[in-house]
């Protein structure tokens, strides 16, 4: 199959999956935060509010796009485009799994494999700040401008510890390509401890991982570092003047950035699609077991229905889970699905932490944010890099 056709197919799959992930990430976020705060969250549209993202998309698309009269129109329109563009481009550099051999076609689970993958992702996602800064400035509104300024200052400050935290595992893995990075984390110590970068010798990168995660929160403007859109002081920060799809664009960019940061953290520190424990101890059967357990729970609840229609819906879902559990056991499909499962599980775990933190921590004050970056994060990342370099050189 020609390269371009294959690339188009892969791009289409990535785009479809990513868009659904972004839409449902918002649903997951609302549900998780609701349950943390002892509420139930969205419930009206569809079962358990599962159609809420669809309703939100329709609402945002059909809403009238207001253009305030005082904005700087060309830049006002350009800003959401920049934000979305540089949030989505890095996704084409992220590998999701190993090689695929299907119907005589050999390819990799990645849109494009470049030898400087991690640097390119760092550079491209760093460009996203222009969208936020420009939106704040073009809105011609002092609150928006404050949001934009805060965002650029925050990005500059946290990019440094982030780059230093990325450099430390790179010293050990000895490559800039994501695919080779994961290959360098294959295998197990003592037959059970995975050789992921956070466990790998000579210096386990657990500190780098923590520093990277904190910097990631700041780079994606998430709580506790969401100063650019602090609603109690800046109305809605940089996107105060935006409505309809241009607002949705910023929203989407934020979630896409979250996914990118989680993917990079997974690939750099958590061994990408490498399983948590060896396949000899049955790590390939975990997805089947999870779906089997879900099916059993569905059947048990169907036997004692709480509502009349549970007698029909729960067995249907039970059978569906059984089929999925079976699909994970078919050998040729299993080779593709198991790495995808592990990758998705790790990324999902990090995304859950993002949401969890949002439900737990209050927002930093602005001077605290800056002091934290320059007096703690930066020296800590530097010391961590120094120790890693020393130990790598010695061993």
């Amino acid at each position, binding site marked *: 199959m020609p390269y371009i056709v294959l690339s188009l197919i892969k791009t289409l799959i990535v785009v479809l999956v990513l868009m659904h992930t972004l839409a449902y990430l918002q649903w997951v976020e609302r549900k998780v935060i609701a349950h943390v705060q002892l509420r139930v969250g969205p419930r009206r549209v569809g079962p358990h509010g599962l159609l809420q993202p669809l309703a939100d998309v329709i609402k945002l698309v059909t809403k009238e796009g207001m253009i305030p009269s005082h904005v700087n129109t060309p830049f006002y329109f*350009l800003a959401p485009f920049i934000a979305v563009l540089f949030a989505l481009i890095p996704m084409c550099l992220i590998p999701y799994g190993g090689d695929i051999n299907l119907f005589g076609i050999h390819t990799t689970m990645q849109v494009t494999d470049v030898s400087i993958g991690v640097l390119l992702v*760092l550079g491209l996602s*760093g*460009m996203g700040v222009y969208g936020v*800064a420009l939106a704040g400035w073009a809105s011609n509104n002092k609150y928006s401008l404050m949001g934009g300024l805060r965002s650029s200052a925050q990005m500059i400050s946290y990019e440094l510890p982030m780059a230093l935290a990325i450099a430390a595992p790179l010293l050990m893995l000895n490559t800039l390509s994501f695919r080779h990075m994961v290959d360098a984390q294959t295998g197990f110590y003592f037959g059970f401890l995975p050789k992921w970068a956070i466990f790998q010798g000579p210096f386990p990168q657990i500190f780098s991982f923590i520093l990277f995660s904190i910097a990631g929160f700041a780079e994606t403007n998430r709580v506790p570092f969401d100063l650019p859109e602090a609603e109690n002081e800046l109305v809605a920060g940089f996107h105060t003047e935006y409505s309809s799809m241009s607002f949705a664009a910023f929203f989407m960019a934020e979630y896409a950035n979250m996914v990118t940061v989680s993917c990079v953290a997974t690939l750099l520190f958590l061994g990408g699609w490498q399983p948590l424990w060896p396949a000899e101890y049955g790590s390939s059967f975990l997805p089947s077991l999870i779906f089997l357990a879900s099916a059993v729970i569905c059947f048990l609840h169907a036997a004692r229905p709480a509502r009349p229609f549970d007698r029909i819906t729960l067995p249907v879902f039970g059978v569906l889970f059984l089929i999925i559990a079976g699909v994970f056991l078919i050998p040729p499909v299993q080779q593709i699905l198991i790495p995808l499962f592990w990758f998705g599980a790790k990324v999902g775990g990090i995304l859950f932490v993002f949401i969890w933190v949002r439900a737990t921590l209050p927002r930093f004050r602005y001077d605290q944010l800056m002091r934290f970056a320059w007096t703690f994060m930066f020296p800590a990342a530097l010391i961590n890099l120094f120790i890693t370099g020393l130990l790598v050189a010695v061993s």
Partner: protein
Amino acid sequence: MDAVLFLVFAAIAVVCAVNLVIQTHPIASALSLIGVMGSLAFVYLQLGGQFIAAAQLVVYAGAIMVLFVFVIMLLNEGKERKVKMRLWVRWAGLPLLALFIALMAFIVQRVLPAQQSVKFGAFTSGDAQSIGTKLFTAYLLPFEVTSVLILIAIVGAIVLARKEID
């Protein structure tokens, strides 16, 4: 395909560069400069200078230009003051520019070999590994001297800024 992509990004770079000069608004000029840097990064990438491309994107288009945009937004720009062009500038400017471009094209065509990948000094290829190896073996002294120079520049900047505050 390579030639097409090269032409596209080279064209973007030139258009952005011209736009940078034409625009009267500082933010528009800064954005054009980002466009120039970004498209140059892709041109480097096509010429095989992968590391340079990434550095260009991370350092110039990312970090330095964010600082530019930040400062422009922070300092409210005043009205632009137009300086009247001198008579000889108005008439001789365009021909001199054409002459300069022609001269550059001539020199580039004469000096540089047509079909060879770009090389510089001891660097054999543009990937990160070989650049790193060469920086820490063949060019260790210049590399370290440069870092000391940058350190001096940082200290100097802090000293100057301090005096201003006091």
